[in-house]
């Protein structure tokens, strides 16, 4: 089993002609931790992995493994594992030879190669497929081979670049759980790249939300979801009602007007009259059907989502998405009372409102 490694990126920067891929990234990953880089295409996630692997050269900054800068090492000397989005299996080699590759090129004796390949095949539950070629495997099996090929070298850092992007929904779920179990069992320090926020929430110890070559927030999934630092992060981490309004006085305290009555403000540092953007997640709003004219708003439309029903509700000048867990679907036009726990309302100052 590989020793658990801490990773630190300090001021990591990379530009390509006409574009800044990474604008000074600082990120620390604890030994055995799984950190997900979450962001849209082109935000610099894959570039970060490529710089760590040594496939591209950084412009500035340092990459530290256990406090030692590895930036000057050749790719083959860094001992990192990188699983590519499209697997990058060697099509002319059998599964066994693919998995053995990293050991063979390091001159590992054949007997040790064989026993470790068997062990790796068992680990990824592909014991019987060793003599097949990649084109004879399914997407999920290829993914497991790619994983086994990477893990067999006992990398100090495992990096997965959107590894499930080519898999169907069911297989994605299975592989997420499989990879997370494996990562925790082996205690591997891991960087996982995805643009799927649900995937990031499920698999991560911490999530680094990225945009335009910068990390906007690094936190645990719950914090990222419920306490995003900006409207941009809120949008990138799930469905969000972002309601413009002003801070108002509520007796001795402050509140924020949402369109269905003011809600007490739990955050400090605001003054009455400040223009803000309030975040309320769709599932944080509770609705109760009432007689026409008695409600805060009216249902405009609804959609069955499986576990919940998503309503679009107009209240005052704002339209809200509301996820309600109920077997009974309310009809369009129904008046509803709306309630929200103040603890689930985040307010962003003007400077944090823009994308």
């Amino acid at each position, binding site marked *: 089993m590989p020793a658990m490694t801490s990773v630190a990126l300090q001021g990591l920067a990379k530009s390509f002609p006409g574009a800044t891929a990474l604008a000074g990234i600082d990120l620390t990953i604890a030994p055995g931790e799984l950190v997900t880089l979450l962001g849209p295409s082109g935000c610099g996630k894959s570039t970060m992995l490529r710089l760590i*692997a*040594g*496939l591209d050269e950084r412009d500035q900054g340092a990459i530290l493994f256990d406090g030692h800068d590895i930036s000057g090492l050749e*790719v*083959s000397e*860094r*001992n*990192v*594992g*990188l699983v*590519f989005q*499209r697997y*990058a*299996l*060697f*099509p*002319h*080699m*059998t599964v066994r030879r693919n998995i053995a*590759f*990293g050991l063979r*090129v*390091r001159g590992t004796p054949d007997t040790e190669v064989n026993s470790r390949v068997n062990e790796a095949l068992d680990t990824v539950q592909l014991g019987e497929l060793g003599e097949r*070629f990649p084109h004879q495997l399914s997407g999920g099996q290829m993914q497991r081979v790619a994983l086994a*090929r*990477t893990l067999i*070298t006992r990398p100090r850092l495992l990096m997965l670049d959107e590894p499930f992007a080519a898999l169907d929904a069911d297989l994605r779920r299975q592989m997420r759980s499989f990879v997370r179990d494996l990562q925790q069992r082996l205690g591997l320090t891991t960087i996982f790249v995805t643009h799927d926020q649900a995937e990031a929430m499920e698999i991560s110890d911490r999530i680094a939300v990225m945009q335009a070559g910068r990390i906007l927030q690094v936190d645990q999934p719950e914090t990222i979801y419920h306490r995003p630092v900006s409207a941009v992060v809120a949008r990138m981490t799930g469905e969000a009602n972002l309601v413009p309004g002003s801070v108002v006085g509520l007796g001795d305290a402050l509140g924020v007007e949402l369109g269905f009555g003011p809600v007490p403000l739990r955050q400090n540092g605001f003054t009455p009259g400040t223009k803000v953007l309030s975040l309320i997640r769709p599932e944080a709003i509770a609705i109760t059907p009432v007689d026409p004219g008695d409600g805060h708003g009216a249902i405009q439309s609804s959609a069955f989502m499986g576990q919940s029903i998503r309503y679009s509700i107009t209240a005052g000048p704002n339209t809200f998405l509301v996820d309600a867990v109920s077997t009974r679907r309310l009809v369009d036009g129904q008046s509803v009372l709306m309630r929200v726990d103040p603890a689930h309302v985040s307010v962003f100052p003007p400077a944090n409102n823009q994308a």
Partner: protein
Amino acid sequence: MPSPIWRRRPTLQRQQVLGLLPLGVVMIVLFGGALALALLQSLGFAPWLGINSFPDVSYFIALWGGASFWWSLWFTLYYSLAATVIALVLAILLALGLTRAFPGRAVFGSLYKLPLVVPYAVGIALAVIMMGNGGVLSRLAFALGWIDDPAQFPLLLTTNAGWGVIAVYVWKQLPFMALAIHAVLISAGREQAEAAAVLGANRRQIFREITWPQIVPGIVSSTLICFAFNMGAFEAPFILGGGFPDTLPVMAWRYFNDADYTLQLQGMAVVVSIGLVAGMMIAVYLATYRRYERSLGRV
């Protein structure tokens, strides 16, 4: 009663056959017909010349019994193989180089293809201008003081070493091979080589284990075409070769142009011999390649 779909199918097939007929006729008449005619003539069938001793293998016996044929075969194989191998090595280096980023790559990437659209005759003329005594290289060597007189420049053309012939073949075929190999590399992408590097492979290991198996199909197709062309090429060895013994295509040309028109049948025996040798070599080459592909699980 048969279904309408069942009834339509023969009509469709007939239409397809009819559509392919013009191409099929051209193929059969031009290629099959020419091959059959060459074989018949080489076996003594040429009634339009007043000769019909078919089947008569004496033309082959006369040809293969003379030392000049074997010398010609040697030179033909030497020029063909040497040019193919040299062009291949350079083409691999060029194709690999073109996958890397460097200033002016776009311009270079266009310029190297220029010989593809320039006729062989121009290449031969360039070889004379560059490599001939009194040519650019000899004058350059003289100007640099390496030789006292341009005439002292080593004889590169019209020798049996065939530097001029090989240079022209390489000049013309290098871009073709590089294009084929580069296309394979581009379609394969960088990820496999990158994955190998991350797994700990050095450059030599990456080339041997990953790049080489990727480019082999491009190498095989382009070298086959170039080798087959070189085996039958006539102009370059005729103009730039060392004279007797000629290559086989030049030998055939001399027979065809002899005042004694009956020697045309001897020329056909040379042509058929070229086909046999080239065919055998290509068959062995392809069989070896197929065995290699099987070992990689690709067939």
